[in-house]
């Protein structure tokens, strides 16, 4: 049982990192941004290029990769999303095209061979008697810091208040003098940076490959729907639910069923409580 508690926490942290960025953009920007998985891949490839190809020190390269992904996110918002933001369908299509284009560009630039990013640590730690790769502990720690920082930023700073105001009522925020475009831009950049951070932190445990964007996007979707669209506490809770449920199914039943878990949870949630765990109705 302790095994599941420890391993589930590690997995949940990764999901929280992924889903928080997605929930920000859905809740604040009212945008279903299908480029979110692409940002995850861009972060990983940027780190690979900086650290492995250009031999930049790991920490510096990782930070630069996250920053770069945030800048790409801002660019996507400015160039692709803003001109069509009133059309949900156009945003969906354009961001999906961006994700597919990113995949093809990565294929062209790096080939089909999977790549490796060195781990931040190769140590193995014992947590409550459970062996955990040091890299997973680093990922957990950084995820916890980023989540806490995001929480403080959104709920305890004037800029965060503006974000919440835009999330609550975009038009009212506009009338109150809030620069809605700027808030959306900052939110998209932060969302992309969080996805990039997830890519940088998890890639040493996985591999870097051009099609790596899809699964994180699906998982982010599942968590955000489960937690309630636009709810940061809801996404955190859903990350824990999905992370622990997958780990428990893998541990007690079989890993072959682990990927079914988020889908079943979404299905159940949509049937029982369509607004999600802590969600509210979104108005167009």
């Amino acid at each position: 049982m302790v095994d599941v508690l420890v391993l589930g926490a590690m997995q949940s942290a990764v999901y929280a990192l992924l889903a928080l960025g997605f929930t920000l953009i859905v809740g604040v920007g009212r945008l279903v941004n299908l480029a979110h998985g692409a940002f995850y891949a861009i972060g990983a490839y940027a780190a690979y290029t900086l650290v492995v190809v250009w031999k930049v020190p790991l920490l510096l390269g990782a930070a630069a990769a996250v920053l770069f992904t945030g800048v790409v996110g801002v660019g996507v918002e400015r160039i692709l999303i803003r001109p069509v933001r009133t059309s949900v369908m156009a945003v969906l299509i354009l961001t999906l095209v961006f994700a597919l284009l990113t995949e093809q560009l990565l294929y062209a630039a790096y080939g089909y061979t999977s790549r490796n990013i060195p781990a931040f640590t190769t140590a193995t730690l014992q947590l409550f008697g459970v062996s955990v790769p040091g890299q997973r502990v680093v990922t957990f720690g950084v995820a916890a810091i980023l989540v806490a920082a995001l929480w403080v930023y959104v709920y305890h700073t004037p800029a965060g208040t503006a974000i919440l105001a835009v999330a609550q009522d975009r038009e009212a925020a506009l009338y109150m003098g809030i620069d809605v475009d700027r808030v959306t831009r900052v939110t998209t950049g932060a969302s992309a940076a969080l996805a990039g951070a997830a890519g940088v932190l998890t890639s040493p445990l996985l591999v870097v490959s051009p099609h790596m964007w899809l699964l994180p996007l699906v998982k982010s979707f599942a968590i955000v729907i489960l937690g309630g669209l636009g709810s940061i506490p809801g996404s955190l809770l859903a990350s824990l639910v999905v992370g622990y449920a997958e780990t428990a199914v893998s541990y007690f039943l079989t890993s072959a069923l682990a990927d079914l878990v988020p889908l079943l949870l979404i299905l159940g949630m949509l049937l029982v409580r369509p607004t999600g765990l802590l969600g509210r109705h979104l108005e167009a």
Partner: protein
Amino acid sequence: MRFAATGLALAFCLAAALTVLPPGVAQGSVVKVGAPGPLQLGVGQGILYGLQLAAGEINARGGILGRKLTVIPEDEAETPEVGIAAIRKLLEQDKVDVLIGGQTSGVTLAQLPHIARARVIYLGVGAASPLITEHVRRDYNTYKYIFRVSPLNSTYLGIGLADFLDEFVRGELKLTRIAILGENLIWVQGVLPALERRLAEKRGLEIVYKELFDVRITDFSPIFTKIRSSGAQFLVPIVSHASSDVMAKAFASLRMPIPWGGIDVKSQEGDHCEKLGGAPIGQIVLFGTPPLRVPLTPKTIPFFDKYVEKFRREPVYTSFGAYDALYIYKEAVERARSFDPERVIPQLERTNYIGTGARIAFDEAHDLRYGPGYARLHYVQWQDGCRRALIWPKEVATGRYVALPWMR
């Protein structure tokens, strides 16, 4: 008058020769060799490179019955729908004379009806499911075009793996409790029953853990945690399509306290260890023909050297298979003196060819023969510094087994 008679005689002889020579000789057209495979992967590229090397050599010596060869690759992307599209393109659009390739059993099985309908010879070099050649056994007239040049089918892989576990793991390492971790795919379902049956016959080894996992899995921590607490002393992975990079990383980062070895196709690639950042993985990998410069037959080292010189990388198992397959086809066509599949197939059935890794012959189901004098299995270990050593069978070993760094 005398010159005229001689000229007439020569003309007659030439005409007679043209009537008895197969159409291809007279036409002088190219022989199209279709190469279906997962071309984005090392094993797929191995098919293509093996064929290109053989075709280049054969063309340099005049081709097959005077016809030059051209290799037409087509990506089957490890999915049945793409695989069917690839095979139909090769058959219907390119109108290939022979197909040499394949790597994913599920894809090859989906392609079989199309190949049989087109009546084109297919020499498989990558897929291991016994169901592929079982088609030949069950319905010879329809599926007689299908042969497997490599690898050994998964039943033989299971038997051979069990023998290795008994002789090396139990006999040499003195370990008796094993865990089996396989991907949940059709070819593994061929390996497992044979492996378990053989282990039951051997009686010295106990399977204490067994799991078939989804190939898309990215978190191996729960599985390895379970294996660790199962009391297993040796881990046997059986994977080909899953991300073995991720599995190996998890194994190394958790410092799993048990040695491991089995079937792991992606870890057969020469850059596998480098892709993992040089992590010490200590994995023992089963090979039909190990990608090492070891003289298994008189052709192994010449092939190895030519391959490395031409492609700047080491061959994988499909490279050996594809290279041999094209030569086997060449010899069968030359014996048949025809490219007509109906005449080439009986000649292919009589194949007794010393390949790059072993003597190659086919059984009544057109499957690669296994056993003394024919193809056998070899075990290579990834050792420190990303070096590889052939550790089993002993008589061809190039090095000794080395314990995992954290267990020394």
